[in-house]
């Protein structure tokens, strides 16, 4: 008998709980009207960022292309006549194939290629998923705004010689450096 009463109590409790839920406001986020702010490091559409000075960061080193597990990045290297700085002649990402793993961003030595939280890139035509360089380029530094590869790395260009970079010491004179 007591077990029957207990069962009835449990039933009443269950029905009460569902009835109470009727009056609660649904917790659903209605997507196209409300877009939840995503974390900064969410991995979605890929962009090519630029230096604080406005120069494009990409030096066409092919590391992203090599790191890409689905081989969706391709490019051609070129060299600027004025100062010998390398850049990508053309740069292409096939978003129809990209899996947004972020390995390209990890491989990039100049913080040029970065993933952004913008995930709304569905298209009806698969060919329009292929983004060219001008579709990828943005005019800011993305997540790493102050970094400028040519000012830190000891790469000799027509503008900057050996020992002239930030935090770089003078090159050692091998003739006066005898033990």
């Amino acid at each position, binding site marked *: 008998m007591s077990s029957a009463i207990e069962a009835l109590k449990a039933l009443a409790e269950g029905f009460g709980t569902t009835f109470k839920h*009727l009056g609660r406001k649904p917790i659903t986020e209605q997507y196209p009207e409300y877009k939840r702010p995503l974390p900064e490091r969410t991995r979605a559409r890929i962009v090519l960022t630029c230096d604080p000075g406005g120069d494009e960061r990409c030096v066409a080193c092919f590391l992203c292309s090599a790191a890409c597990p689905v081989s969706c990045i391709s490019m051609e290297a070129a060299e600027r006549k004025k100062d010998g700085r390398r850049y990508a002649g053309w740069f292409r990402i096939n978003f129809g194939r990209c899996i947004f793993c972020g390995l390209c961003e990890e491989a990039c030595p100049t913080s040029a290629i970065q993933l952004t939280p913008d995930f709304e890139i569905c298209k009806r035509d698969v060919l329009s998923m292929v983004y060219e360089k001008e579709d990828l380029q943005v005019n800011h530094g993305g997540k790493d705004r102050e970094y400028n590869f040519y000012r830190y790395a000891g790469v000799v260009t027509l503008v900057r010689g050996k020992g002239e970079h930030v935090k770089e010491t003078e090159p050692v004179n091998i003739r006066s450096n005898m033990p």
Partner: protein
Amino acid sequence: MASWIIGFVLLLLKMAVVLGVLLLLAAYLVWAERKLLARFQVRYGPNRAGKFGLLQPIADGIKMITKEDLMPDGADRFIFLLAPAVVAFTALLMFAVVPFGEEITLFGQNVPMVISDLNVGLLFIIALSSLGVYGVALGGWASNSKYSLLGGIRGAAQMISYELSLGLSLIPIVMIAGSLSLVDIVKAQQNVWFIFVQPVSFVIFLISAMAESKRIPFDIPEAENELGAGYHMEYSGMRFGLFFIGEYVHMQVLGALTAVFFLGGWQGPFLPAPVWLLIKIVMVALVMIWIRGTLPRLRYDQLMAIGWKVLVPAALINIVITGAVILII
């Protein structure tokens, strides 16, 4: 001759109205169920098609009709095509004996507000509800799929567990009303509804009826998470739609039967009789949705145990006590 024609036209008219109301209500019961279940689960439910998703049933209908009608390889063609029709047909046919009002006089003729006042109406209903299971069992068998077959077998096994208590729970009603005709049963409740006279019968009937409608605490033949979708797994498009309509029409039939047997049928103050019946049907349907939103599915053996060890003995004892009380009074 002329009166015969008028009677025939009136019968056709009644059938058209009942069918139209039934199917429309079935469509909007689906909407109400989705909406209410969603609120029970703190969701919104359909709210994109029209205001409050009110056009959702129409969108569903268009989707069902335009979908490809698939038939699995090796299916038993004839039975496969027949099974969904059996389910929808028996559910709709049950409404033929449900009275929805007092007799009225029209064009100098007495028009009973029921499609057919059978003097064995109750037996007719129980027979049809048993026939409806054929649709489930045969559909499951003819699909040539192991999940469908399991669903069909479960449907048949479920039937033998609830059918007996369903029939037995109605015997006290017949004993008190003294008739198997649904019209007479409603008229017998002029003074007091049978739910107050026969509460035990009411509970047994409601549980058995839930089991018969194959809805959630008893949806063992469908059991989404064990059998995919059970007996209608291989059906697509409008054939699946027929199973679906059958289920929701069945829900209304059970609401109507609960109203007729226990809640005084069409009787009620102020409002016209059909409206009262409609209100009672919808109330029972809403309670069924509430039950669906609350209880988990019973296990196979639990249903058997409830059917054979609790409901049948309780119904039998109820009959004996009712008989004794009637004898004394």
